[in-house]
């Protein structure tokens, strides 16, 4: 087994784990952590699988780079929203409404 494939496996585990975390947590920060871990796992799968047995591939790497930036933007945005929300509601979880 190549290292690439191994990291892909790691990515798979990370994704599953993070998904669980994302689903069970209500604290927004914890969810963001889960999101970032999931993102990491996804990136590992992307690069790992693409490079598996074929050597380095700049394309997935570039994609991941983009993905990282997007992830940080999203995380920052979420944190900003959370802090604003927290300032008015004093809670870190989202309110339950009857709609779902």
């Amino acid at each position, binding site marked *: 087994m190549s290292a690439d494939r*191994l990291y892909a496996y*790691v990515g798979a585990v990370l994704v599953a784990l993070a998904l669980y975390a994302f689903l069970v947590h209500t604290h927004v920060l914890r969810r963001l952590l889960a999101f970032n871990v999931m993102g990491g796992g996804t990136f590992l799968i992307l690069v790992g699988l693409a490079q598996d047995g074929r050597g380095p591939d700049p394309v997935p790497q570039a994609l991941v780079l983009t993905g990282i930036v997007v992830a*940080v933007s999203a995380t920052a945005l979420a944190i900003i929203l959370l802090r604003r929300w927290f*300032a008015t509601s*004093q809670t870190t979880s989202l*309110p339950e409404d009857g709609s779902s």
Partner: protein
Amino acid sequence: MIHLAFDGLLGLVLVATAAGAMFSRDLFRGVVLFVVFGLLMALAWTRLQAPDLALAEAAIGAGLTGALLLDAIGHLRRRRRSEPDDSSVSPDTSA
């Protein structure tokens, strides 16, 4: 072989830190673990021959995200009233 062992170990640690980051009771500890996770990811990227990603992960994933989260945590923790623990189920994203 040694590389593979290292990779395996790194993989395990990655998973462990990630789990710790996500499931630690203390959020602050979780964020710190997340920063560690980010650094380990950077390491993983180097193992995957992706130095660009390693750099980016270190700077952005671990550094910046960590800083953002830490700042937020400080902010939230100072202000926390009674943190509703996970028993208050919120369906949010309906996921």
